């Protein structure tokens, strides 16, 4: 579903992403962890077509994002770490805007908006301006907007930040549901317990390079993900 080959992105002299290779299959939840500034957001933004990269290739469902970005974007949904949405729109106007651009039919859209806004208890608030929403409500709206066009691949940058425990739980269930239906999820997180419980595969990034990746068992073995992550940090710092 998602194939990253030799992705390299440089800011000045700093390599934010250095020859990154990842392969995410259908039905997989792929976690992406690393310290602040490691290159997670750069990689994620490159995958979504928001950020242009210097070298490498990214394929979404076999289509190169360089060659056909529109087709790639129509298959994926992106949920950013900071949901800056259009403050001048109401919740429902924003959802309809996304629905129109992704060309979701009226009846289907209506049903999906109802389904997901009910799940996140946002239905009552849909006629309010987004400017009046709290951070968590904006995050929920961004999630609903991502789900209403039924993407095959969902890319999330720190999706649990700002969500209340119930919404976090609901999102985890929805993530699993997407994968069970043949989709895939690639998300970054700092909450290692969540990654450990939720992910099928995991990649650890440091200084723009993938230092370890594979299935959860391959990466952590018998130890906890937290221990593995911290040990790797120390090892690479000493190296």
């Amino acid at each position, binding site marked *: 579903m998602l194939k990253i080959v030799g992705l390299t992105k440089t800011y000045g002299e700093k390599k934010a992403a250095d020859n990154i290779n990842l392969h995410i299959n259908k039905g997989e939840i792929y976690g992406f962890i690393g310290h602040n500034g490691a290159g997670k957001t750069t990689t994620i933004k490159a995958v979504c077509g928001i950020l242009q990269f210097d070298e490498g290739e990214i394929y979404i469902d076999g289509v190169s994002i360089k060659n056909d970005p529109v087709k790639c974007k129509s298959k994926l949904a992106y949920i950013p770490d900071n949901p800056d949405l259009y403050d*001048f729109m109401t919740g429902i106007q924003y959802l309809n805007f996304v629905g129109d*651009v992704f060309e979701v039919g009226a009846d289907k859209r209506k049903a999906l908006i109802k389904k997901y806004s009910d799940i996140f208890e946002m239905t009552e608030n849909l006629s309010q301006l987004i400017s009046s929403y709290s951070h968590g409500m904006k995050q929920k709206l961004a999630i609903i907007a991502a789900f209403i066009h039924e993407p095959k691949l969902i890319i999330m940058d720190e999706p649990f930040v700002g969500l209340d425990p119930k919404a976090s739980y609901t999102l985890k269930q929805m993530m699993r549901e997407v994968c069970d239906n043949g989709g895939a999820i690639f998300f970054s997180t700092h909450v290692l317990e969540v990654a450990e419980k939720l992910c099928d595969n995991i990649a650890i990034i440091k200084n723009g390079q993938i230092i370890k990746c594979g299935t959860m068992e391959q990466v952590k073995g018998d130890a906890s993900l937290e221990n593995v992550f911290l040990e790797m940090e120390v090892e690479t710092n000493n190296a």
Partner: protein
Amino acid sequence: MLKALLRKQLMELLSSMTRGSKKSNKKLTYIVLLVCLVMFGFIFFGLSQTLYDSFVPLGLLWLYFAVLGGISVISGIIGSVFSTYSMLYQAKDNELLLSMPIKPSIILFVRMISVYIMCFIFQIVVIIPAFIVYFMNNALTVQGVFALLTAIFVLPMMTLVLSCILGYLIALLASKLKNTNAVITVIYVLFLGLYLYCYTQMSSLIAAILSNAQQIGGFIKTFLYPLYLFGCGAKGDALSLALFVLIAFAVFALIYAIISHSFLKLATTKKGITQKAYREKSIKASSPFRALLRKEMKKFVSSPIYMFNCGIGSVMLVVVLIFGAINADVISKLTLLLNKDVFSLIACGGIMLISAVNYITAPSISLEGKNIWIVKSLPVLPWQIFEAKIALHLIITLPAVFIASLGFSYILKFSAFECIAVLLCCALFVLLCALWGLYINLKLPKLDYVSEAVVIKQSMSTFLGMFVPWAYIMLAAALYFITGNILDETVFLMCITAITLILCFVFYRSLKTKGAERFNSL
């Protein structure tokens, strides 16, 4: 701390002008600004000369300075008032700064410095020419230089005070009423009406001032005493000048104290939102283009400062047409006196000039701000996003241009061919303005703005978005004077239309290729 805040404020102000520019382009930016200031300075130099020649023989040198001081204050208010409210109370870094150990009064003071700088820039183009005229006719004295410095640095304080009072009143009203945007819109409309009235009456106002100098002088002495003091001070009365400075500082201190008292409350007021529960309605799906256009439209109407700075040209076109219709008889007589054919060019040039005041696309990329990730992650081509922005510009501008073109064609009794030529030329010019605005904003974007006012009113892209089309019209006019004897007026108009069409195509191609690349790299 104050130093750090001031540095941040100045960086914000400067970056709004030069963001995205290379070092060499920054120099060019400052040169362009300087050239514009000098151009406006020349206009006020002519006015100063007229007033000086009229007032000085009557022994009213103080009135000369008072009137020009008054004009500079009005110029400063016009230049700053629309952004004072948003700069003082709606800055996006409000919460960040308020969370720091900084007194709200200090934050307000630093923001007021920004408004002061704006007033200062708008006022020096009036004040410096006034003193140049004075020094051309009088010896350069220490007292004169001191008066000049006072005028340059203290007079903007008066404007700042007036601008801040207005901004304060808007903030106060906005905090009491539910529909803030409607309130601000009404205030802007009222102010705009007053501005347009003064602008259209400018020549008669000047004539009235010249013919009623004594009465005007009496009025200023009675009701605008600080201006009287300024006039006397600039003339050479040291005591008056000192008193003026004292009053300016005292009034500033008083207003600052009043505003800073309620600044925290007004800057952080979040009005209670009526909980209007969402009721499911039938959904009508539309095309991506319509969705993007609707989004642009919503952005436009939700921001009074965007609407009134970038859409004012449409209102002005209708006002000018009404003015033309009222004075149709006078215009008809003029057409009999002059070469009738040239009126199609004058009408076309005038409509184009006013329509260029609408620079809707010029800040449109910058206004995406932190939300730019949304459009960049959508399955649409950059050109589709540009199309929506261009369409908004056309929707807001073209109807007024068509109404004005048809209206003036009727008033000036143009032939069908002339009417079509004017319509076509104006319509293509509007398209060119839209394409150019987008092009220049892609070159000079500012996505990390703190206040929308900075992007809309002070950015280099909006400045060039309006002035370059004006320069194009001037160039066309110059071309006419060179080729006037060779080409028939309508043929000349068609040639300009053809050149405009070619330019439209060039910018269209550039936006589709390099523009799209630039957008992707933002």
